[in-house]
């Protein structure tokens, strides 16, 4: 049996001598032996579960000297065949392919499990990957339910995994309507110049448009399952519903069984940096209100607004389809100042003030370094679970069509059985988390 990255790390502590006795075939199994030799202590391996959309994107379907892509998994044979062919073309490597994700998770050649499936699988897969001692790279949203998120945090802590959630505006790139990274905003908020509490409006008018084409369709007519697709394994823990192509692959987000539409798609991108700059990485709202047409039990619909309130009075307001805003909409509004799209601010020459302040505390933003040094990634299971919970609080309130009150400490709704049933939703057997 080949050795995994985690054993390398363990042995690395013994000094260089330990490395020289590793069998040569260990490297050979990791990829093309003709490419440049890389010291094994610097090389990791990765397997992707789900090679349809995001798993095949140029961002993720990559393989390099620091981290080799060694395995792919999909329940759609067409996706899998495509990934194998592209792997051959791009990396000159025959990737190990799996139909059942459990086989990839248990593959000893895989150090990092990259979860790129629809989100109803994320929690289950992340927990299982942690249990087998893997590190985890997970696409957003982190989990479909709050309960699954808690389980991921637990498992990662129990088994010592490093977890990265894949959205990044809290630490790099231009943050949508802001026109800058989120850092200057963090400095401004921390400086107290805007006052407290703050209200953040995430809407088209502030540069954060919601994608409402991720709605589901009602009255889907059952269709025959294509022969290349293992629909049962695609559904996994989700309830069995008659197959329709709109349920799966690129439009799955439109169904509550698998995600929560535009909110699930963009919510964590937009909300995670807000949790960061509000300093709420360990906090959650106590109340969520929705203004939306009644939701269908299966198909995700549109919503006009979702309002989150924290115990200290801070608010995040998501303004969606048909929301009527009047006048110029501030992205952040505090008692002493407002920030609009493009970082326009009511405080004169605000950038001069910000520039004189110290930068926010440095964070670990290289995932592979984190794996090597066993440090938490900037967006990890803890803060990722918190921002994903904000997203999921919204979907619970939408599905129930009413205001919900939440206890951030217990991570449960207060005296509300119906809402709490959405926190830990039953899984279809044999799956359980």
């Amino acid at each position, binding site marked *: 049996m080949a050795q995994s990255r985690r054993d390398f790390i363990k042995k690395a*502590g013994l000094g260089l001598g330990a490395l020289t006795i590793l069998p040569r075939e260990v490297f050979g199994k990791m990829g093309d032996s003709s490419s440049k030799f890389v010291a094994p202590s610097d090389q990791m391996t990765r397997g992707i579960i789900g090679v349809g959309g995001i798993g095949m994107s140029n961002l993720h379907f990559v393989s390099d000297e620091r981290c080799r892509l060694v395995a792919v998994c999909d329940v759609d044979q067409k996706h899998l065949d495509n990934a194998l062919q592209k792997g051959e073309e791009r990396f000159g490597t025959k990737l190990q392919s799996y139909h059942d994700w459990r086989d990839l998770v248990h593959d000893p050649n895989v150090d990092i499990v990259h979860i790129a499936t629809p989100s109803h699988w994320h929690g289950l897969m992340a927990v299982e990957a942690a249990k087998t001692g893997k590190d985890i790279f997970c696409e957003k949203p982190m989990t479909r339910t709050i309960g699954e998120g808690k389980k991921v945090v637990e498992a990662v802590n129990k088994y010592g995994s490093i977890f990265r959630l894949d959205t990044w505006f809290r630490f790099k790139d231009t943050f949508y309507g802001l026109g800058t990274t989120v850092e200057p905003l963090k400095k401004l908020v921390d400086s107290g110049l805007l006052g407290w509490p703050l209200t953040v409006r995430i809407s088209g008018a502030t540069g954060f448009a919601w994608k409402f084409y991720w709605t589901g369709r009602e009255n889907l007519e059952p269709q025959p399952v294509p022969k290349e697709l293992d629909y049962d394994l695609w559904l996994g823990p989700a309830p069995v519903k008659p197959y329709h192509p709109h349920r799966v692959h690129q439009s799955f987000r439109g169904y509550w069984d698998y995600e929560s539409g535009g909110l699930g798609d963009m919510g964590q991108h937009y909300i995670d940096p807000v949790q960061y700059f509000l300093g709420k990485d360990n906090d959650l709202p106590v109340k969520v209100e929705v203004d939306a047409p009644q939701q269908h*039990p299966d198909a995700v619909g549109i919503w006009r607004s979702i309002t989150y309130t924290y115990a200290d009075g801070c608010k995040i307001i998501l303004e969606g389809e048909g929301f009527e805003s009047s006048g110029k909409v501030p992205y952040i509004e505090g008692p002493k100042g407002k920030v609009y799209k493009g970082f326009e601010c009511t405080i004169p020459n605000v950038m001069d003030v910000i520039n004189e302040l110290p930068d926010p505390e440095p964070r670990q933003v290289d995932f592979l370094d984190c794996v090597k040094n066993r440090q938490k990634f900037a967006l990890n299971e803890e803060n990722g679970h918190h921002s994903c919970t904000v997203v999921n609080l919204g979907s619970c309130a939408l599905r129930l069509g009413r205001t919900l009150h939440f206890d951030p400490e217990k991570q449960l709704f207060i005296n509300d059985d119906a809402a709490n049933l959405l926190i830990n939703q039953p899984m279809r057997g044999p799956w359980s988390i």
Partner: protein
Amino acid sequence: MKKIYSILLFLALSVAVYAQDARQRTVQTIVADVLAAMPAQNSSDFATQMGDLASAAPQSIVEVAKLMKPAGEGVKNAIYEYALQGVVSFVNDPAHSAKKADVLKGLQDAAAACSDPYNKELLTTLQRMLGNYVAPAAEPEMPVKEAQALLKSGKTHEKCLAALTLMKAQPEKALKTVASALKSDDKIFRNSVLGNATKLFGAASLVPLLTSKFKKLAPDAKVDVLNWLGNNKISSAANIVNAAVGNGGEIAKAAIAAAGKIGGAAAASTLIGQLGGEFGQEALTALKSFKGDIKDEVAAALTDKLAAGTDKTAITNLLSLASARKMKNVAPIVYSMIGSQDKGLAQMAEDALSNFTGTGDIAKVGGLLDAAKGATAISNYQDALKAAIHTLAPAEQYSKVSGLIKAAKNVVNFYPVLASTGTDEAVADLENAYNNGSSAALACLTNVNNFKAAPILLKAAQANPSNIAGVLPRFISLVSEYETNLDKKRASLGEALALANTKDLKTAALGALANVPTMKSFLLAGKYLDDKDAAYAAANAVKNIASKTKEEINYNDFKNFLTKAANVFKGTGNADDGYAVSEIDQILDAAEPFTPSQLTAEEKKQGFEMLFDGTNLDKWQGDLEGYIPVNGTIYVSANYGSTGNLYTKKEYRNFVYRFEFCFLREGVNNGVGVRTPMGVDAAYDAMCEVQILDHDAPMYANLREYQVHGSVYGVIPAKRIVHKPLGEWSTEEIRVEGDRIKVTVNGEVIVDGNIRTACKGHNVAPDGSDTNPYTVDHRNHPGMFNKKGYISFCGHGEGLKIRNVRILDLGDKK
């Protein structure tokens, strides 16, 4: 959006009906009323509907469930699903729990009677939603003995679990577990135990152990502990951390990062001391985020290092740090460096100068800029001058810069600073300079943040193709940012597209066009779907416009362009473009084709001719921009506000003219010109204008009787009708024979008169004056006795739809 509106309308109607018979309905009636209102559009409607449904439970629930058909082709169960899910949510609200038991019973009865597996599944799921929440059982903890064994012989992740289990089970021994983990050579295990112990017992409880054992730890474990001390900001360990900075290697790196996080005066001086060392970059990063005021220490260190003159790395990093944190106290040092004999130091200072300049430096920096030689120096002093003026109001900025320019020898050096003021005056000065042959001025016009620069840039691009690459991107971005009138924006981007001669330029223009959600911009973008260079950007544009526009787009164009766009997206093989294809599918699913209008059998027999059946305006001329065939109607669109006229291609003498019309907004004003020449005001210069007007709008409260809908404008008042609601169609017939005119709306004759008798033969004032006592509007109507002419629609703005226009030409016969 359209869908929502129609549902809302329907809802409003059904609520109104419901209000009349509130308390006397049978269960079936209640169910029918609730279903008709599904899905509820807001919470109060929801509460009303669901309150009714719950009040009639369990029977109402059984009734709704009975209506669900087994899943299959054409089966539409959505409204029943909305109702059942809704009522479950409603009684789940603690405020409405009184009916919870009845709803549950209804669901149970319904499930028992249901044979379709999927519907049964829904009914069962809904029952579960009514159940009590039971927290998931905690996983049983591993027995201590098992954990102890695993800790010895397990794989890394199993040892992590074992250690956690033991620390939870035996907290009194937890520090021992941590201590032994620190001795382990397994980095994963060490960090896992450290992290979990911190979560369980708090960082403070670990500090004594970690600080006392630190010295004896292996280097790799020291790194972990230093990381931990920094992350938990253990200020009592500052001495250990600061001392470890001197260790070198990975330990030093970790110690520097930790010292930065922990802070304190000692850390500041330690880190500043490292700026010239092997880990200068790490120290710089730590100091950029260092909490507290360190500017005096930085200035002092910089002065020292400059005096010694040996440690260039330290000077570079100190200057970077002072620049990053805009330490104004360092400015005098920077000016002194600029004058230094040491070229390297002088260059370093010149590069950094813009970080330190303020309004007090304007004259000094202006002098340096005027005297500057070489592109780097000029650009550095330009930046420094921009920074010096940037806190002033724009007008003041302009006056300062133009003052400097008047005294300057190298005026061109100041153009970019002039541009940075963004003022109208700056644009005018730069335009003058460009007209006098300065290409530098044109380049600066591309940087000025002022929409007035746009026409100058467009003219420059049109005048000389060699300017296109330089100025067109900025023209596009200015239009995109500043033009608020959507049609002007579309037209400007159209001009840009006409000039665009590279893929990048086409992509930029189409990218901007994608945010102009009008029908015309859809059609413009669609033209580029066949252009290889532009197809992808055009596909994005038509998709975005189609998803955002509230205007109607001709179905055939809509379908044709979106289908082409989908093919472009499919062709890329990029997985992300699959989302775009799915979006287009949804947009096309929601769009509906129209059926062309047809003559009735009787009209055919009589010899009517179709003038507009919905597909094209081939039989029309005139303002074909303002009147556009869209999905079966002639549409005067909201965004172009056309005031032009649409004319038949043929002229007519006597005829029967039939059409249908509807108003899309209140107060629509248009008219039918009869026997009109082209390009005149039909109310006076044609035989007449038959008024089309939403006279019910409040704005027309003081309307004259000869202005109401159907009136022969100013000549024969019509009987006042009440118009149908907005969006509903009316029919109209205008029969013209000799001097007789008859107008029929929705089957009711509202004008039947003779124009010659109406004005007693005096279409114009007999005395040649402007006031004609014989017409009701006292105006002259010189065209009234025209024998023939075109038939026209005389536009006065947006909001009218016309369809099914046909004519019976009666020729000369009376």
